[in-house]
């Protein structure tokens, strides 16, 4: 993952590098061409001028030869000599490279040459002019250096500019991202995005606002639905329960009919329980509990065990307690009590007669151990209505409630299977 800025800058700079790289030879050929044509023109002018001047002097043959000899000796870059019979009388233009003779260290110089046949006093002479021209290496080096310099300026400028611009430009975007990160569907609060004059961001913010608004509304109505449905169910459940109570008083009731009523009562109790638990979950979801109370966890655990005592005895369960004193926590005491009760009842319910249940409480965790034969599916375990045992009367919400309460108070729930023991633990 790379930031957007570097993703854009890298190919951009690469492109610039390629273009500038290609420009170096192009520049070279262009400049070299200009040089050469300029020098050719220059050489031609020298030839013409010299020819003209020599002819104007109207020298005798002897003094002409002496002048040419002198010319040749003081102007080493030019050479005039008589055309030998049989020589081609053609002009030629060429480039030569030769070492310099009078400067140390010896360097190679490049010369643009013109070899032309001229007529002096009616006789043909070959006039050769050599003019120093910039060496190709030097030209290329100079162009490359210049290009590199501009490339460096381009890169630095681009980086600084894009960083500055993007910082300012992406500010509303970063603001939006920060707000989205902090957004919690549960808190039911709408996000107010920063005003921006960038069309794209404005559109993004508008679409997000719309989406969130809809989500919040759907979520709220769903939560309200759960809560309302549970509430509305309480009354018909109450009517059913009360009618059964009245039916139970019928003097003509047979044993069989009584048993039927009792069975109905049981089913009714279970639906009531499920309903209550759903309501509890909805309320936790709706954050309707104060979770800033001080809780004396050791006292609360002891109290819950005390209440549960007869149920331990009923199943002849051996209880091992290891409760550290002065475990002070922050949370909701009613919810925490429900959490502890659910943990204990769970252990009692799934223990066989005569088993041992261990309760460990220290500053960082509460753990309840009970014996078992096989490990339970950790994923399914804490899911709502995923019952792992066949013949259970439970609501299928007990562990989901434990998880929700823990989450609500910032705790975590864990399950482990060790040494044939189910260990449910809550970490504060």
């Amino acid at each position: 993952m790379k930031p957007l800025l570097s993703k854009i800058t890298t190919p951009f700079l690469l492109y610039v590098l390629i273009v500038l790289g290609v420009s170096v030879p192009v520049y070279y050929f262009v400049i070299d061409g200009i040089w050469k044509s300029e020098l050719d023109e220059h050489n031609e002018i020298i030839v013409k001028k010299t020819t003209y001047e020599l002819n104007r002097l109207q020298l005798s043959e002897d003094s002409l030869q002496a002048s040419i000899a002198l010319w040749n000796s003081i102007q080493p870059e030019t050479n005039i000599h008589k055309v030998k019979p049989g020589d081609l009388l053609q002009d030629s233009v060429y480039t030569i490279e030769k070492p310099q003779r009078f400067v140390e260290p010896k360097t190679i110089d490049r010369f643009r040459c013109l070899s032309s046949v001229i007529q002096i006093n009616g006789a043909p002479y070959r006039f050769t002019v050599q003019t120093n021209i910039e060496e190709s290496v030097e030209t290329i080096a100079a162009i490359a250096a210049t290009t590199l310099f501009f490339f460096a300026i381009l890169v630095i400028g681009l980086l600084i500019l894009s960083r500055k611009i993007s910082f300012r430009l992406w500010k509303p975007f970063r603001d939006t991202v920060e707000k989205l990160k902090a957004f919690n569907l549960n808190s039911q609060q709408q996000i107010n995005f920063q005003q921006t004059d960038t069309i794209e961001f404005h559109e993004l913010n508008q679409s997000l606002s719309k989406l969130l608004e809809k989500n919040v509304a759907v979520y709220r109505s769903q939560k309200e639905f759960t809560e309302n449905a549970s509430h509305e169910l309480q009354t018909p459940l109450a009517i059913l329960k009360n009618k059964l109570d009245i039916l139970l008083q019928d003097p003509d009731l047979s044993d069989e009919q009584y048993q039927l009523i009792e069975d109905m009562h049981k089913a009714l109790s279970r639906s009531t329980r499920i309903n209550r638990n759903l309501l509890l979950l909805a309320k936790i979801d709706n954050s309707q509990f104060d979770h800033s109370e001080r809780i004396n966890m050791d006292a609360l655990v002891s109290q819950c065990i005390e209440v549960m005592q007869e149920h331990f005895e009923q199943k002849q369960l051996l209880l091992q307690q290891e409760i550290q004193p002065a475990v002070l926590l922050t949370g909701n005491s009613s919810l925490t009590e429900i959490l502890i009760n659910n943990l204990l009842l769970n252990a009692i319910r799934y223990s066989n007669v005569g088993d041992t249940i261990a309760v460990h409480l220290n500053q960082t965790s509460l753990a309840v151990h009970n014996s078992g034969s096989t490990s339970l599916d950790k994923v399914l375990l804490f899911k709502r209505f995923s019952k792992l045992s066949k013949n259970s009367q439970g609501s299928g919400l007990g562990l989901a409630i434990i998880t929700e309460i823990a989450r609500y108070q910032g705790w975590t729930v864990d399950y482990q299977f060790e040494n044939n023991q189910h260990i449910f633990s809550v970490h504060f």
Partner: protein
Amino acid sequence: MKILIIEDELELAKSIATYLSEQHYLCEFAPTLQDALDKIQLYQYDCILLDIGLPDGNGLKLLEELKIQRKQDGVIIISAKNALDDKIQGLQLGADDYLTKPFHLSELTARIYSLIRRKQFNSSNIVVQNEIQIDLLAKTVIVNDLPVVLTKKEFDLLMFFIGNKNKVISKSTLAEHLSGDIADMLDNHDFVYAHVKNLKKKLQDAGSNPYIKTVYGTGYKWEN
């Protein structure tokens, strides 16, 4: 004994009235808050059963009205809401008890019984049931002038039976009464059997008549 049932759900009100009238309570109905407010102005009730969610307003308003009029009627809130806030607010406003729907009629009757005894015999809070004397405040029981030591659960059970004389009470009802919310999470309700057995034994050991009968195999009845 006069009871006012403030409940907009007719079937529920009828069931309550049917059950209570067998216990010789006189029941009147008020399906709306306005009806209820009218009635408490005109009459005195031993106990008012108050549903908070009424079609024309919050039932808690009635509690405020009772307070203003300095009426001493006992009030039991019956609510579909289990909300702790409602409960605390209701009790602060002067309600005597709070029952969450759905509830057993025997549970309601037991609560009404205790409430009326508490309210009306403030100084001598003693219920006499033939040879059995029960002190509601001290939570002690005397049979034939002999003190019987009961556990808290056994005392609870005794009061439940006395409040539901001659009614068939199922084991599950007693389980719910004794262990509250956790009852339906328990696989079996045999602990009820143990408590009832102990109570029976203690009372009979002290020379009381065998009032508690087992009916239909698993149900109980206080016969008097």
